[in-house]
């Protein structure tokens, strides 16, 4: 194709020599046309060269940079605009006729093109799984199974056991970045009797563990669909449409349960996929040759399927080795499900608007089903994840200076725990993501100045921190905004991971309808930041409300204020309220401390965010809540979970239990049903590293300010 274009260009040059297409019959300087027969990009002003580069796709971008020294110096190693950085997955496949590798970028309205950048192994290989830029490939000749990142070239072999029938591997998945020490890799298989057999391996282990569930009677075939790691568990769809849930509980314990299928229609499936979209667990079912397509959402707290009619601003990319969701910048891509099938040189998608299949670029024509389209022999949906942050272990961090946390991050201020106004510098800020080893960290620059609270304030208090994306290490994190709340003043920045030296802090005052809002405890749910907001009202004392905020046009905007439920108490001596997110819902927990430090009442309210009414709940549907003044988190609990800490290893957490800090250094567990409180653990004994299931990051205990921090509950 490129050759034909070259020929066309040559032809055009010939043609132009004969008939110049100039419209004005002025004298044309002949020597000028001779000199510029080819487009001399290098003669263009330098800023225009970088402007052209911004229009290039990732692969071309790299080629462009590689063509000469000048371009290499003018164009930055990574595209400036994140938009060009593979905003949606690309489909890479091999053509059956010439065996060439081609790729399709669904965000470009054109046909496929050659992908001449791949360094392929000499032996045939199979791609089993793909997540965040990592792929798992199996090489039959070499009898190897490995994960690798094609961009960073980090790779590692999985150990091979005799039990692991490598040639049959179909349903393969890992929980997080495979180089992260808390990563769990699973393979769903079945034994000769059709009972589910799960192999799993933890990072660093030399041997796969087998999970044979003895007392189960249900047959479950995972088939070809890959599992999805979601909210601490692996979910996998069976060939019959039922949903399996697998959890590694630690200490060699696992749990496996099967939920019923969403509809009875599921018969003769073409394919079925699990995908995480905007904090929801979605299942996409495609009927035989695309005769029908249905999408369901699994409500984790109610364990129920809900039919999805529209994806809103999102689009899905499904395949057996990987499925993704994306919020595309191009409006026409929304509400579509891209399938790994091709007609001509174009990708096929299903539109939830028209309820029909279409071929990308030729939207006017619709397909009744998938007949007439082909599935490439061998393909992979790949997302490039630029992950320039070096892993850092917890041990290297000065723990004593951890200042604040929310569900996803910790800030470390190395100078002092309390920021003094007089202090010229703030010290170093660090942003971390929670995992067993805190493998992601990010240095933030100093604040331009320290906010003061009126004139009488001696000290400035950091009341909340937040991130607008749930994790730092995804490909979308360039859009992530990092927020620091100092009462009603907020500082925010875009921490571009690769260029942390270029971050600028922007500050603004947070207000709503002319009233200042003081923010505490932030929670991120479906792209919206929720927090407790204290509204200063001239008439009365501070009223506790829940504010929802979002970054709009480079400004943090308060979308709405919602009164906290009647009966919840503002954060004051003797009572505490905690805000947390769980299973896509918002929760407020109010705890009332009675006399002599006994918890008298504890109440929990639930809110489904578009709605505005809080509903009091009496049980947590099997969950355990971990409450802290900076952040709160949750995990699934069990009947026999412990309410008392055990020194050896975890036995899990009691369901319907609140774990909360109380009385300085002691952590209590409070059972909602029994209304009983038990001292759980003192902070000093908790090890922030090692085998414990989660972290309670401790810092100087003055002011009784606790930090609760979620690790990995698997």
């Amino acid at each position, binding site marked *: *194709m490129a050759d034909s274009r*070259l020929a066309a260009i040559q032809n055009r040059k010939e043609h132009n020599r004969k008939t110049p297409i100039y*419209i004005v019959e*002025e004298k*044309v300087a002949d020597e000028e046309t001779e000199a510029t027969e080819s487009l001399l990009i290098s003669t263009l002003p330098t800023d225009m060269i970088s402007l052209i580069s911004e*229009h290039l796709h990732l692969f071309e971008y790299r080629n462009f940079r590689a063509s*000469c020294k000048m*371009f290499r110096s003018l164009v930055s190693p990574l595209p400036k605009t994140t938009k060009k950085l593979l905003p949606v997955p690309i489909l890479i496949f091999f053509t059956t006729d010439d065996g060439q590798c081609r790729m399709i970028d669904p965000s470009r309205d054109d046909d496929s093109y050659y992908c*001449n950048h*791949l360094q392929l192994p000499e032996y045939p290989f199979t791609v089993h799984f793909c997540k965040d830029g990592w792929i798992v490939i199996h090489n039959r000749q070499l009898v190897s199974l490995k994960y690798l990142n094609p961009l960073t070239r980090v790779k590692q072999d999985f150990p091979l056991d005799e039990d692991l029938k490598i040639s049959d591997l179909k349903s393969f998945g890992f929980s997080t970045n495979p180089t992260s020490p808390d990563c769990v890799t699973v393979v769903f298989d079945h034994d000769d009797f059709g009972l589910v057999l799960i192999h799993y391996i933890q990072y660093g282990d030399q041997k796969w563990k087998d999970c044979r569930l003895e007392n189960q009677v249900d047959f479950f075939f995972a088939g070809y669909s890959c599992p999805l790691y979601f909210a601490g568990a692996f979910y996998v769809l069976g060939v019959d449409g039922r949903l399996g849930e697998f959890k590694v509980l630690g200490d060699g314990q696992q749990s496996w349960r099967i939920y019923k299928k969403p509809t009875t229609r599921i018969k003769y499936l073409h394919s079925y996929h699990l995908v995480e979209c905007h904090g929801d667990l979605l299942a996409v079912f495609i009927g035989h040759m695309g005769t029908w397509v249905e999408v369901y959402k699994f409500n984790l707290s109610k364990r129920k399927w809900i039919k999805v009619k529209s994806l809103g601003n999102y689009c899905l990319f499904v395949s057996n080795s990987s499925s993704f969701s994306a919020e595309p910048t191009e409006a026409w891509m929304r509400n579509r499900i891209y399938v790994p099938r091709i007609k001509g040189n174009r990708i096929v998608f299903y539109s939830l608007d028209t309820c029909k299949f279409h071929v990308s670029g030729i939207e006017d024509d619709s397909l009744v089903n998938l007949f007439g389209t082909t599935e490439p022999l061998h393909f992979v949906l790949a997302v490039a994840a630029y992950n320039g942050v070096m892993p850092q272990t917890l041990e290297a961090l000065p723990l004593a200076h951890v200042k604040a946390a929310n569900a996803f991050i910790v800030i470390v201020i190395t100078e002092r725990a309390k920021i003094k106004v007089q202090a010229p510098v703030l010290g170093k800020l660090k942003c971390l993501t929670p995992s067993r080893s805190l493998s992601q960290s990010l240095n933030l620059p100093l604040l331009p100045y320290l906010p003061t609270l009126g004139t009488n304030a001696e000290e400035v208090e950091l009341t909340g921190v937040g991130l607008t994306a749930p994790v730092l290490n995804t490909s979308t994190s360039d859009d992530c905004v990092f927020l620091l709340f100092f009462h009603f003043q907020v500082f925010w920045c875009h921490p571009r991971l690769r260029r942390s030296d270029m971050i600028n802090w922007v500050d603004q005052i947070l207000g709503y309808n002319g009233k200042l809002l003081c923010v505490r405890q932030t929670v991120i749910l479906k792209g919206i930041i929720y927090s407790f907001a204290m509204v200063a009202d001239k008439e009365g004392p501070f009223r506790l409300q829940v504010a929802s905020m979002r970054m709009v046009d480079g400004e943090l905007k308060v979308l709405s204020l919602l009164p906290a439920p009647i009966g919840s108490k503002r954060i004051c001596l003797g009572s505490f309220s905690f805000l947390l997110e769980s299973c896509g819902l918002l929760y407020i927990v109010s705890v009332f401390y009675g006399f002599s430090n006994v918890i008298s009442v504890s109440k929990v309210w639930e809110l489904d965010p578009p709605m505005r009414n809080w509903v009091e709940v009496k049980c947590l549907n099997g969950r355990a809540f971990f409450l802290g003044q900076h952040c709160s988190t949750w995990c699934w609990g069990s009947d026999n979970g412990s309410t008392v800490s055990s020194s050896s290893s975890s036995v899990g957490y009691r369901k319907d239990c609140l774990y909360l800090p109380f009385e300085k250094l002691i952590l209590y567990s409070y059972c909602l049903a029994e209304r009983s409180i038990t001292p759980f653990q003192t902070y000093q004994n908790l090890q922030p590293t090692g085998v414990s299931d989660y972290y309670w990051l401790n810092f100087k205990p003055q002011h009784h300010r606790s930090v609760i921090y979620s690790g990995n509950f698997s």
Partner: protein
Amino acid sequence: MASSSSSSLSRVVVKSSDNNLFVVNKKVASQSQLLKQCIDNMEEKGTNDVILIPLSNVTSNILTLVLEYCEKHADFADDDNNNQELKQWDHEFLKKFDYATLNSLTMAADYMVTKSLLNLCCQFIADSIKDLTVQQIRQIFDIKNDFTPQEEADIKNENAWAFR
């Protein structure tokens, strides 16, 4: 009075580098931020004279093309429905030029601050890079390879997606 002032400013005269004069409708001229700025400045001064804007960097033939583009876009400025048609027109518009013209047109668009035309040109150039190898890029754009073989090998290795 008011009518005479508005009529005097409904057209401007643009002079190309080779001293040809073009009479341009104000609405068309406004597509170029450079011309718009000139007109606005003059209007602020309240002059009734015909405005003459000399463009020392743009030749007649290129200016004709820029104005053709501006005219088309001015026609469509108030009409949101025909975006697809305009897109099509844009595409056809650039297709017929040789690279020398395209080069000058890009420069002119930049000089005259016609952002949409500049973006269009850049996109067009970027599209012509699609699917090309490094060698082909060099060939088409007449770029001299100034890397040493070692550097070249390093870059090639750095750019590849390694599936092995």
